[in-house]
């Protein structure tokens, strides 16, 4: 059963109860407990296609609650807690959604060392996945989101989760946090895109989340094989330029991009090595989403049939 399949009242009752609302998010199950209706409304919009989990092992037990004391009501705040621990300072109550997303990122990056976790967007088409490793501000979220809106399977905009045991990519197609100008860019790019409320004045400026594409969410237990690594960089006005990247250089770029490369030890090295060996590697400079997607479509169709 999906989140959108039950009434908001029932959803709120579940989330408000002691057993919480358990949602399947990629390979993880998250138990969310909260009384905050406004937050839950945004959550249920952005996560509408995710499955409600009933009989699986829950990985993260997250509560979103108001603090005790006067900040419960006056300039109300919200606290993210996992298993009773509160790793962050409280946020203003109306920023509960970005706090939840940020907190869940933190939980995954801290614990899920059964994966090599790349700081990367991931999309897939025809069984071939492209990894977009990049630093914040390079446009990887926008690019991955745009591809997701043009029929590619969207696996993540933030975490390239490479399974330690076999190097396959585990999808985690959560809503995409669009920042500042990107919000308008995506809205113009796809007028039918569902974007949640604006959250002004976060650490990263104004943030709004793009609802996860339905097909991607439905296929989120289906792992993908990496076929290309593209290091994207958005440059205003730039023409779309792909530059082939030497493997040794790509290795260094990819390994230093991972959140937990050192923690993963030998496994981390082997996974990066395999990816680099089996994938074509490029640097990409772009500004025009439509143009870059057209070229990626052509490249992915050719990929594997002959070497580019």
């Amino acid at each position, binding site marked *: 059963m999906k989140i959108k399949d039950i009434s908001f009242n029932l959803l709120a009752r579940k989330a408000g109860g*002691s057993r919480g609302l358990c949602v399947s998010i990629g*390979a993880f199950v998250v138990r969310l407990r909260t009384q905050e209706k406004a937050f839950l409304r945004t959550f249920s919009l952005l996560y509408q296609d995710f499955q409600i989990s009933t*009989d*699986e*092992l*829950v*990985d993260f*037990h997250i509560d979103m609650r108001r603090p005790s004391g006067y900040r419960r009501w006056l300039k109300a705040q919200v606290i993210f807690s996992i*298993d*009773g621990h509160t790793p962050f300072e409280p946020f203003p109550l109306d920023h509960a959604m970005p706090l939840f997303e940020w907190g869940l990122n933190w939980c995954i990056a801290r*614990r*899920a*060392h*059964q994966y090599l976790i790349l700081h990367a967007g991931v999309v897939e088409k025809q069984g071939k996945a492209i990894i977009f490793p990049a630093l914040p501000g390079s446009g990887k979220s926008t690019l991955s989101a745009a591809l997701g809106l043009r029929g590619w399977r969207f696996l993540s905009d933030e975490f390239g989760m490479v399974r*330690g045991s076999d190097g396959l990519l585990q999808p985690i197609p959560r809503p995409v946090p669009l920042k500042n100008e990107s919000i308008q860019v995506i809205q113009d790019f796809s007028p039918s895109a569902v974007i949640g409320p604006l959250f002004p004045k976060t650490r990263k400026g104004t943030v709004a989340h793009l609802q996860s594409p339905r097909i991607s969410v439905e296929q989120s237990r289906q792992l993908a094989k990496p076929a290309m690594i593209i290091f994207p960089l958005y440059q205003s006005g730039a023409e779309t330029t792909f530059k082939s990247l030497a493997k040794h250089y790509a290795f260094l770029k990819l390994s230093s991009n991972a959140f*937990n490369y*050192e*923690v*993963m*030890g030998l*496994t981390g090295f082997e996974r990066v090595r395999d990816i680099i060996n089996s994938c074509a590697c490029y640097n990409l400079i772009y500004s025009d989403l439509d143009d870059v997607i057209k070229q990626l479509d052509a490249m992915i169709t050719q990929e594997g049939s002959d070497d580019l």
Partner: protein
Amino acid sequence: MTYRSQGARQLLLNAFKNPKSLQQLELHEWELLIRCTRSSKLVAALGKKIEFNCPEVVLPEKVMAHFQGAQQLVEYRKQLLIWELNRLNKALAALDVDIVVLKGGAYILLDLPLSVGRLLADIDILVDKKEIERVEKHLLAQGWQSAKLDEYDQHYYRTWMHEIPPLRHQYRFIEVDIHHTILPLTSRLHPDPERLLNDAISLDKMACKVLSPCDMVLHSSVHLFYDAELKADDFRDLVDLHELLSFFCQQSADFWTKLEARSEELSFQRPLYYTLYFSWQLLGTPVPNELLIRCKGRPLYLPRKLMEYLIPLALLPEHPDYPEKKVAFARWLLYIRSHYLRMPLHLLLPHLFKKARKRLEPVVT
């Protein structure tokens, strides 16, 4: 069937006492077990225990993923720690001072079974008090840095504590705590560190030493039942003790007698009694019954019963969804006890007062 706190405690104890029984767990019980082990930093340790002691137990895929994730981190920390020990040895080679590695570092150097899957935080070493200044200077000259402390904290460490302010190499993450004895100078017990140093054992693979088996157990006992505040993450220390005792008593037949004699030499009878009792009672350590009865550290009836009630409450993690008032109260009482044992009141009260006042002062940057 849903579990409340008592059930959660039993689930956790049972997993360490009788891992074979885990075969029968249902998924929601695994989930609770993993949450409880996580609050005592024992996820990887439990995974390894099952892997070694009963590989026939079939783990659900997601349980395995939790074990894997935790074990990866443990391996990484272990590697960092071994490297840090290597660097310390190199940096101090010229000094010709005995370096005794304590706790987790020692378990690794000795390849003890409990070192597999044990999450390590920092390195603790023991050196002769006469040499500590030379050791510190030597490390500071070679890239280690002292934690930035204000004057009062410096004074606190240097005058009252059993260690100097922690050091950390500027390019690395592992903290090095250098001790000159194993209890604060202000505490009621004053073990003579020279006895520990004299009995320390040399190693083949590194120039440093480790404590003798008896001293290793006694140090861990004192740490848990004398010096610690006894919170949920201290349950791990009891598991350590259980593993140490179980291992050493198999290694030598007269281990228990030696341990008892050594505890008397160092006046550690009381902490040893608690170790033996709770390790036996909660984790099923094969402690000889007559030893428990004749143990000189056995408290009188009333304090004994009180501790038998308080310790399991405070030490074992609660059900994460159902925190209990009596647990908080037990932890509070034991917190007071640990501070009382740590410092006489005429030092403790001004210290707590200063600490509280510092917290209230605005931070000046």
